[in-house]
């Protein structure tokens, strides 16, 4: 699964730690999501989309092999 988390974060000028604090996870978790090593749960995905005031589908996109 692809994501545009890094881009969205850059738009709001947020650091990984800022985003992590806003949604109640560790900075390492944000880093893993950005590096596409970890796919977040639905709850976390919605929390992330709420921070960026957009939809989950705008941030997370399925790839062909998903």
């Amino acid at each position: 699964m692809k994501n545009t988390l890094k881009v969205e974060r850059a738009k709001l000028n947020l650091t990984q730690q800022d985003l992590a604090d806003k949604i109640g996870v560790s900075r390492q978790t944000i880093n893993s999501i950005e590096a596409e090593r970890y796919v977040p749960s639905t709850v976390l995905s919605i929390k992330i989309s709420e921070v960026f005031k957009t939809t989950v589908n705008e941030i997370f996109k399925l790839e062909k092999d998903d």
Partner: protein
Amino acid sequence: MESKVSKKKIGLLPKYFKIIGIAVIILAFVPPIIVKSMNIEIIQSQKEFFKLIAFNFFILGLFFIAISRDKIEDEMTIIIRLKSMAFAFSWAVLYVIIKPFVDLLFKDPPQDLTGQGIVMSMLIVYMIIYYLLKKGR
């Protein structure tokens, strides 16, 4: 910092249990150290009793450390815990199968498998894998 999801789903002990665990492990080594350092004469049955107590305290200490919360407990740490537990379980199965053969080859006579030994090795493997996966994320 902790999400409601991780709070609801798994029953972990509070963070301070890590310190309690370390204290319990230290406590496990106190009686043997006292007996050795003061040259106290003890009979075989007492020796076995002290060994049993020391092992049990050591396992309890490891258990407290293993299942206490981290500073930041989120859904990713839950997944890491799950992976570590699965690895530790697989380790225990292989340990039980392979150890008797290793003992047959290298030890004379082969030692019996004990529940304490298996549980202890599982806890140690769990903590090593958990630490490595956490560092590598």
